């Protein structure tokens, strides 16, 4: 059994930092730009797939002004400009040096997260970092230590807990709807960077490069599952794990982890993989809480018909416009709404000088769980490879 590492020595809760004379002064200095009447100015670092979702969210968010976006790929910069970004850069470091922004969304590949956060820290810019926070806890520690010293806030985009079906599970669980939950299971599957037929586009190479990403499916998908499980059950302990590869690729495309939540005395299995063809809008995320009196399942909190649900949301948003209301951004898409809500919560926290609801420490904790799982899986693999002693 492994337990999570303790809170690092350098970590100071953001709220506590405000009572710390030096850190408090730094925070005050960096955050003095925000007032209730001014918009939070944002730069988006990386506008590939998920970066564009963040960009669109930020552009639609009241009280937020997107000043610039950066991406090394010209097509991505063009898309960002078409979406309404005033300025684009081919290098995120130049954006950070040139723009007077309050916060940056770091949607770069994982191998650039630490560097980008460290650059942002030089300018006192708060950061909202795409998951995984870093490629390792060691890298996360360096990143968070820098952020702490600079007095910047770090939020992490763990969106699973923002999905309406997960919120529904949590509400039912908190209400005690099935009594004690001795066992839970979570599965998250998709088709990863290689996709499914027909293969129309070139798959990016970095998601399959362990040096660039730090791992495979466990860091891409499992990391979300760790976050949502801790959100439900509290601290987790990893008991065992196994990794698999359905193709001869450099990282795992399947991971299974056995966990234990001591506070709720719940045993949990987690399985994630990037091997299964996904046909949107169907998404294969299953969460089941097996309780004494029954089961809580996220499937019970999904729309019965995604298209009918989308139509209802769309009509509701149009009607809301005529009543001078704000639209429920990405409402018809169901899943993308979670990204908007996560970013909105981060921005609200920054405005209120509060710790982001999913902080860098939360992101690090999920990473630590993944690392423990990798270690245990490697131990098991080594044990299996060792030749048995033959008695004659």
């Amino acid at each position, binding site marked *: 059994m492994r337990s999570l590492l303790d809170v690092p020595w350098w970590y100071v809760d953001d709220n506590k930092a405000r009572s710390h004379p030096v850190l408090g002064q730094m925070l005050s200095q960096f955050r003095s730009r925000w007032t209730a009447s001014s918009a939070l100015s944002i730069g988006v670092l990386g506008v590939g797939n998920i970066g564009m979702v963040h960009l*669109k969210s930020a552009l639609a968010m009241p009280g937020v002004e997107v000043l610039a976006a950066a991406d090394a790929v010209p097509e991505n910069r063009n898309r960002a400009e078409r979406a309404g970004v005033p300025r684009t850069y081919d290098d995120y470091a130049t954006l950070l040096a040139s723009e007077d922004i309050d916060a940056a969304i770091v949607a770069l590949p994982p191998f650039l997260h630490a560097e980008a956060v460290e650059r942002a820290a030089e300018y006192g810019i708060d950061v909202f970092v795409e998951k995984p926070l870093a490629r390792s806890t060691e890298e996360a520690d360096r990143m968070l230590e820098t952020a702490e010293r600079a007095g910047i806030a770090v939020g992490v985009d763990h969106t699973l807990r923002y999905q309406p079906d997960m919120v529904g599970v949590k509400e039912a669980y908190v209400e005690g709807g099935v009594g004690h939950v001795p066992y839970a299971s979570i599965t998250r599957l998709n088709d990863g960077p290689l996709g499914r*037929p027909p*293969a*129309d586009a070139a798959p990016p190479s970095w998601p399959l490069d362990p040096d660039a990403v730090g791992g495979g499916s466990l860091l891409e998908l499992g990391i979300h599952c760790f976050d949502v499980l801790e959100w439900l059950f509290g601290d987790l302990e990893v008991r065992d794990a196994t990794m698999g590869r*359905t193709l*001869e690729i450099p990282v795992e495309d399947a991971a299974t982890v056995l966990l234990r939540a001591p506070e709720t005395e719940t045993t949990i299995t987690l399985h994630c993989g990037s091997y299964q063809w996904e046909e949107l809008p169907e998404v294969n995320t299953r969460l089941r809480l097996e309780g004494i009196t029954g089961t809580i399942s996220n499937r019970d909190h999904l729309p019965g018909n995604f298209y009918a649900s989308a139509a209802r949301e769309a009509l509701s948003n149009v009607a*809301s416009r005529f009543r001078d209301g704000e639209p429920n*951004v990405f409402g018809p898409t169901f899943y*993308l709404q979670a990204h908007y809500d996560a970013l909105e919560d981060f921005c609200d926290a920054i405005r209120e000088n509060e710790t982001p609801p999913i902080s860098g420490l939360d992101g690090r904790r999920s990473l630590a769980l993944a690392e423990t799982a990798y270690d245990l899986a490697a131990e098991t693999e080594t044990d299996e490879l060792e030749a048995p002693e033959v008695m004659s």
Partner: protein
Amino acid sequence: MNAVRLAAVDGADRRGGWRPGIDTRMATLESAIASLLDRHRESIAATDRVTIAPDVHYPFHPSTGMVTDPAVVGAIAAWFDRETDTDLTVVGRSDDRIAFDRTASYLGYERVLDRFGTDVVDVADESVPQRNEYRAADGRSVALSVPEPLLDRTVIVVPTLRPSADGSAGGAMRTLASLVNCTADPARTAVAATRAIDPELVLLDGTIAYGRDPVAANVLLSGSVPAVDAVGTSLLGRETDENDALSTLLEEGETPVAVENPDEVDLASIRERLSGGQLPPTDETHPAVSTAYRIYAAASGDAVPPQLEGR
């Protein structure tokens, strides 16, 4: 040669229709591969150099039937290694989506073929000589650039039994067309490529076929390009006359396609399971949906998700 010969592959011990271990699959394939290749021993073993052209267009998992199982090609390489002194090469071609060496490596081709000292060659590589060829197709002369390993060596095409994106059967002609450079339309390119390369044999991998879903058909088919493609097309529930390239080559055949089925493979059952199958729908948003979403977004003030922007 207008006969297609079938060989059953023992699938009785395959839980779920698939055995992950490539050695296990190769062992299962050994007798079926031998039964088909032995009949062509004279023609293919007499040559010094043979090129194998499997369907390795993208690293889809072999258990889906969307690519040729590396175990099939491995079993062919094992037969050549055991029975002949032939120099064997396996070819594929990089395209604008993915490099062939990545696909071959991810699928396990490189590892299994390394055992037999078989080269895996990307015919798009600059080091591979290309030769300009001209062949008639549909009454017109078609110019194409063909990699020399497909011209100077005896060629065996090893496609998989699956539909293609345009709805027709994948097949040998399409596999050959994917290996040449040609600006003609797909049908004429397929005809011209098949004529220029003039393969000695087609060995169709139907161990796992893809219809609407994967189907453990547990069969191998061998014969000429038009004969095997015609049977494959039929198994996928398509009409051969809907495929212009295949129709062109079939019309030249002097005799109708015959099927030799010594293992009594249940073709009707395979056809029933595969018939009408097609690839999953593309992820690309239909332009009408993109337009509708933009109108909705303008009316509501909502954002347009990047996935629905359209190109």
